[in-house]
């Protein structure tokens, strides 16, 4: 029977694929960044947590200024500062359980330090004596990642593996606004949502990717909106409000832990310093913009809240600052010591078993270093061919 013959009985019905698989409405982020400090929500937050966040912010700021000073003294090759972004860095660290994993980008040494990593180990990469200065498994902190967004699929894979194994582990992956343009960002979010992996993505939208402002990076209503296209919730939060970032991340992590799948969180913040100490930010932005953001400083915001409510007195502020000074002095002192390096480490850990070629090269370098130690020398057999 042809279609023409059965025409009378034919009743068009839309194919099932036409129905949306997921209702997009609940996935949409709020129109404005979510805030806690200075709002009624602040009263719901445990004062102990607020004080803890405050102390860590003060330490974090001091860590940033100390690390920047170390670049001037030649003790660090380079430092990408997170000054202004401490609320994100600190909240990301404090919100995780010990068994959870953090996937930092190259700017996130502070998050690693706030999680408990020794700052010298966190800064090894930027001092230049080794790439990763710590054992990632010991601290559940993936290596600081410089190729942008490439750590995101790793976070998804790790979270997926943990779930397959039945472990109650969540991965929190950090990325910048610029990094969201990379293909790996897309692929990671898609995998995460398809696999319902227990992973949370925190985008620190600090306004710039080196010199490029967000407007040249995306035409999306917000970066948080990108979540909807993958079928995961997007949350928009004030990235300078440590209590808000902590709460939003906490909810996303609890959701992931309970099997609810991934969340994309966009924290709106600002990179107060230049991209790194080697960058000249005056080429692409004015002081006025920076000053505006200084008026929305994460430490000042929290300090204001706490002092207004009588949760923090001068004594406590002084104690926090002293603690930060002690940390900075210790960091300074230890970074002022030359690291002891063994050139032979070049050949360590390239493979489980070095190839014969590497063993030859190792022998060659050892001979060169011995010759160097003996002072100036001739390079060929004496007198030959000359």
């Amino acid at each position: 029977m042809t279609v023409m013959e059965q025409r009378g009985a034919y009743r068009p019905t839309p194919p099932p694929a036409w129905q949306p698989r997921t209702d997009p409405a609940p996935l949409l982020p709020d129109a404005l960044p979510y805030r806690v400090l200075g709002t009624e929500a602040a009263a719901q937050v445990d004062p102990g947590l607020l004080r803890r966040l405050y102390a860590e912010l003060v330490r974090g700021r001091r860590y940033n200024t100390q690390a920047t000073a170390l670049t001037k003294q030649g003790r660090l090759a380079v430092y990408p500062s997170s000054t202004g972004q401490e609320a994100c860095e600190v909240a990301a660290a404090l919100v995780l359980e010990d068994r959870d994993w953090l996937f930092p980008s190259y700017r996130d040494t502070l998050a690693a330090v706030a999680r408990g990593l020794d700052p010298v180990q966190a800064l090894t990469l930027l001092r230049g004596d080794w790439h990763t200065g710590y054992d990632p498994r010991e601290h559940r902190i993936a290596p600081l990642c410089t190729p942008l967004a490439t750590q995101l699929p790793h976070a998804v894979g790790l979270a997926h593996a943990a779930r397959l194994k039945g472990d109650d582990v969540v991965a929190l992956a950090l990325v910048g606004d610029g990094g969201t343009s990379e293909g790996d960002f897309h692929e990671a979010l898609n995998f995460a949502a398809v696999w319902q992996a227990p992973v949370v993505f925190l985008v620190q939208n600090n306004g710039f990717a080196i010199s490029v402002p967000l407007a040249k990076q995306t035409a999306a209503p917000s970066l948080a909106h990108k979540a909807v296209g993958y079928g995961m919730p997007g949350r928009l939060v004030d990235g300078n409000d440590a209590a808000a970032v902590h709460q939003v991340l906490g909810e996303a992590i609890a959701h992931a832990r309970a099997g609810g799948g991934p969340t994309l969180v966009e924290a709106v913040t600002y990179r107060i310093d230049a991209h790194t100490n080697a960058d000249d930010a005056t080429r692409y932005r004015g002081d006025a913009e920076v000053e505006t953001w200084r008026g929305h400083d994460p430490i000042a915001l929290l300090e204001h809240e706490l002092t207004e409510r009588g949760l923090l007195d001068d004594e406590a502020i002084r104690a926090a600052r002293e603690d930060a000074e002690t940390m900075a002095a210790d960091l300074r002192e230890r970074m002022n010591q030359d690291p002891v390096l063994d050139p032979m480490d070049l050949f360590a850990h390239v493979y489980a078993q070095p190839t014969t070629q590497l063993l030859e090269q190792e022998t060659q370098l050892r001979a060169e270093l011995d010759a160097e130690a003996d002072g100036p020398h001739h390079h060929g057999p004496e007198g030959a061919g000359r």
Partner: protein
Amino acid sequence: MTTVALKPATMAQALGRALRDSMAADPTVHVMGEDVGTLGGVFRVTDGLAKEFGEDRCTDTPLAEAGILGTAVGMAMYGLRPVVEMQFDAFAYPAFEQLISHVARMRNRTRGAMPLPITIRVPYGGGIGGVEHHSDSSEAYYMATPGLHVVTPATVADAYGLLRAAIASDDPVVFLEPKRLYWSKDSWNPDEPPAVEPIGRAVVRRSGRSATLITYGPSVPVCLEAAEAARAEGWDLEVVDLRSLVPFDDETVSASVRRTGRAVVVHESGGFGGPGGEIAARVTERCFHYLEAPVLRVAGFDIPYPPPMLERHHLPGVDRILDAVGRLQWEADS
């Protein structure tokens, strides 16, 4: 006769001038990449171009290397001549799919109907104290991909002349810029920039009789320094600057080795599977009966690029080069 006012220029400035002159000469030339507009590039090579030619001609793209090169392919399909910047060697890797599957083979796939005149500028190599992923020598990957030209300057004049030629080329050119030479200086007459150099010709940078150092890019100044130091040991070394790895100038290289009878290939890139293997094989195939010793290689070790505090042990230096020269079987001569 007027006296010519020579002014110092850095390699970065010469590259910028080549971009500028190419853009002025040809309205289809478009520069694009991360931070190339307002900032003028992290090495300031594109400084001033957005101002002079507008943001449509010198564009800050979203941060996505595959997107940068992929859209450049489309732009070239429509008749533009894109010059894309990869911010650092290791950050070009996301663009490899576009490079290998499309850029390198579009001419061939379309039986010559649709060549892609794209220049891909890549700052490469080490020696600048860069942290992880900022010091790779990725030339072997490019050389191993048929359809790409691979060019690398070692002097200020060549930076200008070769980049102009790369942009003018109707084939895709991977233009490797030795990072640590960006600030190297030479004097030139800004009213009359150096000649446009044809792609594919090596030059003898220093003539000598004892042996030939075959090198390119960042290792050229190191080899010249080694050649100076070698005089004290009684060797008179010739230094050949390849300038172009693809196409490869067999003629100039072979002529030099036939004259000297000995050769060492020097590069930063790892030795195993590196450019030196190809070069040594070509020299041996062409000059076997002229050779007094096997062609040797001095290369970076076969390791991931080390952290800055250890890089001096990794990079080929004067002593390592002279050690290799010393192993060129001089006993046979005496």
